[in-house]
């Protein structure tokens, strides 16, 4: 009896409980601390690899990203690309539908865009061609995204694994078309499509190559924000995400919402593929998506589905990638250092989420009043 009492009164060293809410300044503070810790860890690793002053390395990273006007624009191009995919993922994730398939949806969108450029490049005027490409990519991505949604809605097939597998089907499909369209023969690449006519390429706007990329993605970002926050669809997505049973009770047709939302999600990822082909590389290959479909998942999740927060996180990740590639070339490492650094920083940001959602108390610490 006495032993039992003793066990009950012993408090564990650390106790945690869920927070009800946290002021914004505090949550930003926690994230910044996480980021700072990550940069310190990276600095230690950079120092042990290169024996260089990490501060100088970070300065070099900054220069590599924003050093010249051209670099700034390439950086912006990459940021909006990542942002576009993350915006596409936002509605699916808000619905708690794990769309890991962005990579594949981008690729099929890219294939559709490239197909239009190749087969219609001579017969359509450039403006009409770009419009056709836009809708072609959107539909292709939308269909690719709807397939797993149909199986989820109808038979409850696990969407994480389904969308993951769809990526690899899409990658093989891309390889198929690359081999089919290869130019010059034997190179195993498609080469730059319509190099002479520039049919289907984004025209420069205000003297800049990538203005159109920015405009399209900016419109999508704002539209998605409004869609999720103020439209009826957005409300339905939120309810389905919180609890399917509640949604059913509120007479929301869960199956329709799942299919519709994934069509939207896939369509925007398809548009990202269109931007990648028409607005950046002007070719198609299995690296058109280049892992950004996966990186965008992390962006969308960390931003908690807020499309404006995604801008900041995309910018951070692209900055890290560019910067790390810059150090790699300056200090004779290879480019993969960027993946390592990105990984470390994301680990810390993911870890810092805990301190935003949970409160920890140590044994012997101040007792809270009334508890």
């Amino acid at each position, binding site marked *: 009896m006495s032993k039992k009492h003793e066990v009950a009164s012993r408090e564990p060293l650390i106790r945690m*409980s*869920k927070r009800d809410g946290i002021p914004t300044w505090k949550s930003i503070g926690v994230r910044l601390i996480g980021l700072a810790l990550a940069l310190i860890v990276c600095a230690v690793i950079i120092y042990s690899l290169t024996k260089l002053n990490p501060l100088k390395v970070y300065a070099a990273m900054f220069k590599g990203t924003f050093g010249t006007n051209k670099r700034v624009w390439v950086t912006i191009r990459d940021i909006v690309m990542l942002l576009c995919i993350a915006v596409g993922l936002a509605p699916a994730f808000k619905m708690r539908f*794990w769309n*890991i398939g962005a990579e594949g949806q981008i690729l099929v969108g890219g294939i559709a865009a490239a197909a239009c450029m190749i087969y219609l490049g001579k017969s359509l005027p450039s403006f009409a061609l770009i419009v056709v490409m836009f809708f072609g990519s959107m539909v292709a991505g939308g269909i690719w995204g709807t397939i797993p949604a149909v*199986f989820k809605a109808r*038979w*409850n*097939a*696990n969407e*994480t*694994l*389904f969308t*993951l*597998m*769809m*990526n*690899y*089907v899409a990658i*093989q*499909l891309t*390889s*198929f*078309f690359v*081999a*089919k369209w290869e130019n010059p023969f034997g190179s*195993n690449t498609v080469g730059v499509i319509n190099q002479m006519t520039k049919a289907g390429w984004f025209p420069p706007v205000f003297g800049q190559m990538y203005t159109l990329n920015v405009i399209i993605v900016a419109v999508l970002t704002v539209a998605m924000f409004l869609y999720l926050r103020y439209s009826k669809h957005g409300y339905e997505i939120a309810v389905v995400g919180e609890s399917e049973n509640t949604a059913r009770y509120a007479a929301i047709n869960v199956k329709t919402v799942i299919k519709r939302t994934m069509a939207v999600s896939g369509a925007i990822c398809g548009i990202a593929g269109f931007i990648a082909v028409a607005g950046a590389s002007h070719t198609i290959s299995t690296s058109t998506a280049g*892992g950004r479909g*996966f*990186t965008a*998942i*992390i962006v969308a*999740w*960390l931003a908690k589905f807020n499309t404006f927060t995604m801008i900041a996180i995309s910018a951070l990740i692209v900055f890290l990638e560019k910067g790390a590639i810059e150090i790699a070339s300056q200090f004779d*490492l*290879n480019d*993969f*250092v*960027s*993946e*390592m*650094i*990105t*990984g*470390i920083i*994301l*680990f810390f940001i*993911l*870890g810092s*989420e*805990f301190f935003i*959602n*949970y409160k920890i108390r140590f044994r012997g610490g101040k007792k809270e009043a009334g508890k």
Partner: protein
Amino acid sequence: MTQVISLIQAAIVFGTVILFGAVGEILAEKSGNLNLGVPGVMYLGGIAGLAAAFFYEGNTVNPIPIVSLILTLAAAFLVAMLGGLIYSFLTITLRANQNVTGLTLTVFGGGVANLFGGTLNKMAGGVGQISVAMTSGAFRTTIPALSGLGIVGQILFSYGFMAYLAVILAFLVSWVLNKTSVGLNLRAVGENPATADAAGISVTKYKYLATCIGAGISGFGGLYYTMDYIKGTWSTDGSIEKLGWLAVALVIFATWKPKRSIWGAYLFGALFWLFFYIPGLTRSSQEIFKMLPYLVTLLVLVMVALRKKREDQPPHSLGVAYFREER
């Protein structure tokens, strides 16, 4: 006939890589942790083993194959486990989202492995390609008496020891999961952690151990790939990542059963190499053939969902973090 034999051999060698990955992942998923970091963990295992062999061969006057073998195996297992530990700490202790953490681990593992792999290639100098011929040779040694037994020898005994280790591990994990009380507890944790917790099972401990040991086993997949499949070299072409995702696919194909993953792995290997043995394929139609493993996995995924057989379903709490005070 020789073509059939060579397809079977290619399938088994290929299958062994993903079999390790899948067996490790099954162990982790049975505890409710969907570790999408398998490719990253395989990368870590591969590079750790290669680095260990490289430094042992380079710094020892008379390197002994068996010592090198043990060193590489230990290094691969431990480093892959460290990858699993990062994942476990973030998802189990800090309750981070499993999908996102797993994907980050894949990015991180690939980055670390290719960074050091590239560096090793540079350190090896000369042709710019690292090669640990001796250790790789030890990995590739076959059983002398049995591998000469004609067709049977070619099909069954023409592989390095790790091909058999993979099968043994699959049986071992299957036995632990299904026949021991530890396995019963582990499955309880994966199905319903709250109930397991109420029954006095330490959810945290089981999740940590299953995920870390699982990661170690998956790491062997990367090691087998570097040491046996590509003969003790390193290339930064991202092929381990593709194999890692195939291992994740195999887990689904095998419906979370280690024994079923054995023949599943060889089937995937055969499907993957099938294009090589079908005459008259153009290069583009070969690519369509390489879709087969993924399409078959999708089919299985749909079948499992359709048939709703209880024992084929994923662990019930798969992908969900457990917090005791939240019911």
